[in-house]
């Protein structure tokens, strides 16, 4: 259970209470929950789907769903921030799928990550706010997760970059491969090994914590 970093669990404690009350139909508590979490979720969604209008729709769907499902949230099973962020990420990734299925809705100024104008060498991050850190920077900054950041340090450079592109920017294996100019199979195995190594590293960290404390 103690995998999550301290801050994450502390923020989550308050949110559990709000979520429990929202589950009982308390709109004021739900408004507070939105107040405290929407900027985080919007940030996460916006990195994955850079189309602002679509990202707003995703966020809206996320909270309407949270309101309806709040009663089924089980604080014993997961932490609220983990639960909320997972819902937001899943919705955001699904919205990419729809976007690809409906190319006519793509705005012409925002080519999808799959577009082939490689001459232009267009940076995938052009559309993010100017000073937004890249995915690799994010991975090393996720540092209030002490154990997690130590585990991230243990990854090879390629593993780190491939996982960061996939996780933060919602790129598929093929898109990561294109971005890194590496064969698809290689990228797939980097991502898979990176995830496995994070898992075993975090499990060891928990064992160390238990032994130390």
């Amino acid at each position: 259970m103690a995998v999550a970093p301290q801050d994450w669990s502390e923020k989550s404690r308050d949110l559990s209470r709000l979520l429990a009350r929202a589950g009982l139909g308390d709109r004021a508590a739900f408004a507070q929950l939105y107040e405290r979490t929407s900027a985080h979720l919007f940030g996460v969604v916006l990195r994955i789907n850079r189309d602002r209008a679509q990202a707003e729709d995703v966020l809206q769907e996320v909270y309407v769903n949270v309101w309806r499902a709040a009663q089924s949230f089980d604080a014993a099973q997961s932490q609220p921030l983990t639960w909320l962020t997972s819902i937001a990420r899943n919705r955001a990734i699904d919205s990419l799928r729809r976007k690809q299925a409906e190319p006519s809705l793509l705005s012409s100024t925002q080519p999808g990550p799959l577009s082939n104008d490689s001459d232009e060498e267009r940076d995938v991050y052009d559309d993010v706010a100017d000073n937004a850190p890249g995915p690799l920077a994010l991975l090393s900054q996720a540092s209030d997760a002490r154990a997690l950041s130590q585990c991230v340090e243990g990854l090879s450079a390629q593993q780190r970059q491939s996982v960061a592109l996939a996780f933060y920017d919602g790129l598929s294996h093929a898109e990561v491969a294109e971005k890194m100019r590496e064969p698809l199979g290689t990228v797939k195995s980097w991502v898979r090994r990176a995830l496995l190594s994070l898992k075993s590293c975090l499990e060891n960290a928990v064992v160390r914590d238990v032994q130390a404390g």
Partner: protein
Amino acid sequence: MDYSRPELSDRLAAAYVAGTLRGPARRRFVSLMRSHPGLRRAVSAWEARLMPLTTSVVPVTPPPRVWQTIEARIAPANAGAAAQPGWWAQLAFWRAFSGVATLAAVSLAVLLLSPPPSQPPIVVVLSAAGGVAPEGGVIPASFVASISADGRAMVTRPISNVSLQADRSLELWAVPPQGAPRSLGLISAQGATVVKRGKVLDNTAALAVSLEPTGGSPTGAPTGPILYVGKLVL
């Protein structure tokens, strides 16, 4: 594919949570998850591992119109949100209703099948609402409610020590699957309380205990924090 193989489930769960599982494979995985508790467990474990990575994502405050739309969409039907279908047209209602109907049918079956003297009471364990599990992963239960099988009487009893300020009371609520909770009255923080409020089980998905001013909620709805919650599982 054999999704009961643990390594395979774990690999798929990792790819799902990391976001690299895409297209038809992702959709297939989502529908499989519904019937495979093992997959769901693997997914929660990966979510717990990876979601803290998002702490470094720069927050972006959404424009006010997003909340306005959400607020309109979750407004109660009588608030006149035109696009909102009535409660009777909503899937959630029928889901909840069919849940309650099943519960009623099962209770009836239990009533019919078992001889009256041996009817076991239904026991609901209430634990701290929103409690984050300590290292052991277990949130200590704080109240137990035993409900007679016919749902007519209930006894609540604190398990652990509940310390309460002098100017506060604990109020018990029956929470329906949808809609406002109903008060079942005040309960004692020290000893057993017998609650007699007709059909306690009717249209009740969970029991909750809230902290209220002495004498109970002045408004008829919970005003204080929900301290303990227990779901009704038959």
